[in-house]
């Protein structure tokens, strides 16, 4: 199971420069995540959790080191290849859901398919299928303003899963939700992790949730991995 890791980072670093000030957001991160893992990432705010997520999600590029996903050097992909990587290999969910208010749940879920040229009818059919997977088939024609926070996050999960990615990156997905709803979302992620062998990386600052759901947790502090501990 641990023989060939799905995600591997080597001395990964990210420096933000604003004018003369340089901020080291990440400094020498070495990660190895096997396929099908549920990894928790913890750390105080400003520790570099989100930066790591953005690099792994292909939204940003590292200033040093490398990222390899499924044997491909993600850190050296060009703009176009990165877009394809984001479209097919990773799905991301965020604390603020990031779904488009003007679209219905179904249209939001179908959005990634728009860019791969899937015909509209097919897009919506597949979106409905994924929505029923996350338990939202009844709400498919509702707009975000008519949905609860938990339902909105489920829409985001469905959208992240529509292209059947290898990895799901969840950046504080429960930050805006009450604890009962939070558990519902995380149960959903756990179910996907177990039934579809989906690799999940979960950022949270709520340690008890990480301990409950993650197989493994890493702690980030000032852009470095402080310690890694296995649950149980």
């Amino acid at each position: 199971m641990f023989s060939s890791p799905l995600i591997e980072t080597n001395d990964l670093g990210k420096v933000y420069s604003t004018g003369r000030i340089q901020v080291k957001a990440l400094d020498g991160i070495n990660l190895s995540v096997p396929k099908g893992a549920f990894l928790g990432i913890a750390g105080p705010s400003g520790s570099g959790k989100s930066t790591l997520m953005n690099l792994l999600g292909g939204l940003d590029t590292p200033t040093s080191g490398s990222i390899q996903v499924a044997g491909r050097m993600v850190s050296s992909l060009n703009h176009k290849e990165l877009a394809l990587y984001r479209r097919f290999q990773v799905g991301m969910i965020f604390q603020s859901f990031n779904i488009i208010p003007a679209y219905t749940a179904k249209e939001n879920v179908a959005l990634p398919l728009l860019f791969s040229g899937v015909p509209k009818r097919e897009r919506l059919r597949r979106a409905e299928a994924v929505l029923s997977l996350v338990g939202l088939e009844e709400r498919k024609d509702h707009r975000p303003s008519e949905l609860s926070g938990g339902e909105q996050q489920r829409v985001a999960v469905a959208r992240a899963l529509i292209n059947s990615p290898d990895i799901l990156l969840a950046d504080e997905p429960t930050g805006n939700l009450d604890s009962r709803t939070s558990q519902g979302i995380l149960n959903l992620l756990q179910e996907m992790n177990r039934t579809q062998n989906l690799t999940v990386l979960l950022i949270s600052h709520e340690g008890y949730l990480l301990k409950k759901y993650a197989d493994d947790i890493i702690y980030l502090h000032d852009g470095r991995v402080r310690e890694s501990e296995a649950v149980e």
Partner: protein
Amino acid sequence: MRVVDSLEQALSNLWKKKLRTFLTTFGVVIGIGALVSMISFGQGVQYNVTDRFQKLDLFNYITVFPAGMQSPFSGERAGSSAESPRSVLDDDSLKEITALEGVESAFPEVRFPARIQFREKTRFSLVQVMPAAVAATELVKLRAGASFADDYSLSLIISDSLLTEMGITDPDSVIGEEITLLTLMLDLSRLNLSDMSSLFQNGKLPFSEQSHRFTIAGVAERMGFGGPTPLRSDVYIPSGTAADIPTISLTSIWDFFRSSGSADEYSMVNVKVDSPRAVDRVKAFAEEKGFQSFALIDQLEEIRTGFVFMDMFLAAVGMIALVVASLGIVNTMVMAILERTREIGIMKAVGAGDGDIRKIFLFEAGLIGLAGGVFGLCLGWIVTTAINWIINGILARQGIPFVDYFYFPRWLNMGSIVFSILVSLIAGLYPMQRAARVDPVVALRHD
């Protein structure tokens, strides 16, 4: 991303901001409307002058007239010295001109005043003699009836404006009807040169009136631009018939003194050639014989250069509105990007490439351009039609026939829409590039 989807995305984005889309598009509508109105005016003038001349074959006409005579076109005295012996433009010269290579026909400009009697009404008019072959060309635009059957038929062509003057509005109704021409001729029997006083004593001028009966063969449209066309009258009769009518073939007292008694001297000969190349041959002949000549084609280059400048000026004026409109597009789209930064970030996060984002914005700009072009063209049509009616309404009171001052060739209709889209796309380039460069990390933090 499929074209259909880009189009749908762009349409729904524009639809979401209806007022802004409408205002931006309206700017383009005004810009394109102004531009096409200006250009169609330039085209109209050009069409009314050169194209119409070309259609009427006027560039294949050349006028030859004796030296020392005032040019009927320029107003200045044509060339030459009073000392050199004056060449006489008579039947012999006419034959020589006709014999030149490339000359189709040559007919003297013969006009005489006559009283026209028709349906108990009488009007004075100039009658012009015209060979049947010339009358059958497009030069004479018939509104009813036909041209003369041959050079010896007793039929004539009358202009619609003369009919209108007589209170007849339906040209078809007069075809085949009889009409009388009353001409004056010098009656030598009444002219007693030894005793000029007798002329006044018996109260009669040495003229007698002759009446000639014709049937109306056709009704012609009066030319709006009389200038260089060989049509300068309201009544045309065939040349063979005219030869049998004794007249005083002069149109001014000047001709009377100038003609020096020679009966068959012409004040002007209209020459029709088969190609503009033959014009030079006729000109060379005229020069050799000491005649003056005037060919419209000589003015063509000058006219064309003038049109290019006029078109450029008109287009520049029209472009001002379009440039302002395109700035409106840039403004609208930059605003849209600011509003939609988060949306762009989301799209990128779920796998949209820079190209996909570009496409959406480019389609939005293109759609504004398309709508602006189509409605701008409509606006141009409406405005120019209105202006045309107003101008013609005013000029009609001065007896000037209806003329389309604006002309929309097909390339202008097609081109204005294409141009509108093109300008809008160019205006959309910067916003498009800016949208594609949105950093998703920053955009997703954006509120």
